[in-house]
């Protein structure tokens, strides 16, 4: 598993990201800035390619199940057929439709990825904002907690928890992944908040008597919204990979088809020995494309938000 934490270094370093935003504010109003961002977004090859790949697979996940009558666990199809006009991605050794498994699996990946990333973002923001803004003992305690959870290898915890809990639904899988993948996001957001908290406009808001929650939500969060979005994308990609790993180990929901489960059954049914490549190639291509698309999109967005990075 390569989970999101290893990708923490792909997020822009705090100082650069903030200067980029500030510069935009001075030159143009909020409206102009939005058009400026759109202007650069459509001309950024990385963003366009990454987003197209992700959207294409999202479309396949949404539309795919409508194109086939087969359901992922249904038996009774010819055994181990290569792709044909009738079975677009062939059939598995025990006679299931690979295309149906693939498109339903894609759905699972998107659902788990989005939900887990949302949960991790919320926890990461809560811990990062409060720690970075309040400082002092609260920050010390939160940082300690973050660092502890950060050092513990996520997969080890997930393996032992899901072994006892036997995960039954995509939702509980996503919750487990979300609960373990927030620390690097919290650390990054804390660093950002920390440098924003000493800015004049934040001090002004504080002096005018606004409470912590209000300052964070009204002053700090909007000023790092692009950064938060980038964090969400990386968490999304990491969650898709982690979910695939859990499913591959047979620790995901067994009643829901997923790309990891496809690889699990392919390996345990000797698809490699039998040369049934159509069974194990699609799930890996799907995961790699979604995660790779998200990462490339992330770099593209970074360049759009960050004028200094554009001159590459």
């Amino acid at each position: 598993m390569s989970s999101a934490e290893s990708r923490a270094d792909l997020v822009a370093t705090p100082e650069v990201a903030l200067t980029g935003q500030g510069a935009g504010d001075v030159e143009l109003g909020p409206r102009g800035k939005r058009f400026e961002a759109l202007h650069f977004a459509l001309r950024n090859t990385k963003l366009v390619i990454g987003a197209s790949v992700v959207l294409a697979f999202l479309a396949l996940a949404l539309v795919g199940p409508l194109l086939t009558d087969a359901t992922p666990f249904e038996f009774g199809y010819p055994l181990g057929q290569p792709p044909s006009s009738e079975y677009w991605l062939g059939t598995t050794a025990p006679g299931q439709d690979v295309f149906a498994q693939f498109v339903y699996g894609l759905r699972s990946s998107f659902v788990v990825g989005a939900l887990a990333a949302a949960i991790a973002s919320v926890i990461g923001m809560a811990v990062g904002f409060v720690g970075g803004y309040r400082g002092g003992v609260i920050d010390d305690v939160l940082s300690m907690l973050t660092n502890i959870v950060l050092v513990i290898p996520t997969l080890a915890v997930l393996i032992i928890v899901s072994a006892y809990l036997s995960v039954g639904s995509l939702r509980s899988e996503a919750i487990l992944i979300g609960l373990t993948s927030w620390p690097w996001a919290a650390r990054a957001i804390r660093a950002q908040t920390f440098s924003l908290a000493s800015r004049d406009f934040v001090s002004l808001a504080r002096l005018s008597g606004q409470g912590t929650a209000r300052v964070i939500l009204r002053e700090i969060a909007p000023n790092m919204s692009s950064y938060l979005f980038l964090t969400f994308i990386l968490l999304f990609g990491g969650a898709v990979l982690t979910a695939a790993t859990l499913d591959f180990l047979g620790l995901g929901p067994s009643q829901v088809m997923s790309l990891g489960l496809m690889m699990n059954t392919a390996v345990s049914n000797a698809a490699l020995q039998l040369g049934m490549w159509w069974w194990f190639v699609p799930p890996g291509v799907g995961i790699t494309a979604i995660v790779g698309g998200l990462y490339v999109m992330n770099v593209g967005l970074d360049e759009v938000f960050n004028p200094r990075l554009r001159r590459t």
Partner: protein
Amino acid sequence: MTRYLARKILLYLLTFWFAVTIDWMIPRLMPGDPIDGLIGRIQADSTASQNLHGYFTESFELDQPLWQQYLNFWQGLIRGDLGPSITYVGSTVGELMWAAIPYTLALLVPAIVLSYVAGNRVGAMAARRKVLDNTALPVAYVLTAMPYMWLAIMLVYVVSFRWELFPVSGAYDFSLQPAWTWEFARSFLSHWFLPFLTLFLVAFGGWAIGMRNLIIYELEADYANYLQSLGAPNKLVRKYAYGNAVLPQMSGLALALGAVVGGALVTEIVFGYPGIGTLILAALQNRDYFLLQGLFLLIITGVLIANFIVDILYVIVDPRTRTGIQGT
């Protein structure tokens, strides 16, 4: 420096305590009677299950008060007694783990070190060099987005089954016994290469991308512009940029350890490599909870030790941690 390392050690001790407590708590926190769950899975008949219930209650020491259970757990841990294995009858969890550790380390250590070194080099070269950037970067992105087990599956399928270049599974030929002979060494290396390559490639992609981005940031920094305007040769500017970019990469190394270890687990499973990952799969399939809990602590301990090694390296690389100015 001592303060920096002392703080790190404190963090790791706390983390270890936290991990042990989780390890102890999870079976006790789970909904329902864990023992009924266990026996239900074994599907024994009723008298047998009653005996089993008594056996497990005693083994888990569930008939004692909670604080006593917790103390006993620690005592067992300190004695190195992690309980018997259910999967491999007659072996203790400790023995099984000791047998598996060398194989996992043989994959992990070279893969981590070499991918870090090579990834940093290639990433630094790619930064601000259009041609290399446009060719190497897409490859790096595909590599880092690949699930470890899928790359492993593809390598087994293409290289082992189609091209028949490397053996398919295991750590050495079944006809051999581990020994210090050339024949064994050759067999070991040929079995080792593909799982190693899997770990190396995925991790390599991540390092290359990280280094490339960091170098670009550094080359935009004031000191780099200043050096350049003084007429310093490009090579010198890049050298300074590299020196600064290595630091975040190194803290990234500590963060990435957990991910690579996870990758090693699933890679071993695909290759049937007899390390920790294969042991975990066996433990999962047989609901061998003692073994699973032991392996959990083993992985945590390993990652903590590796983190500490990275910290020491960091002190060597970053002078700020030595002079008392806090680094990261």
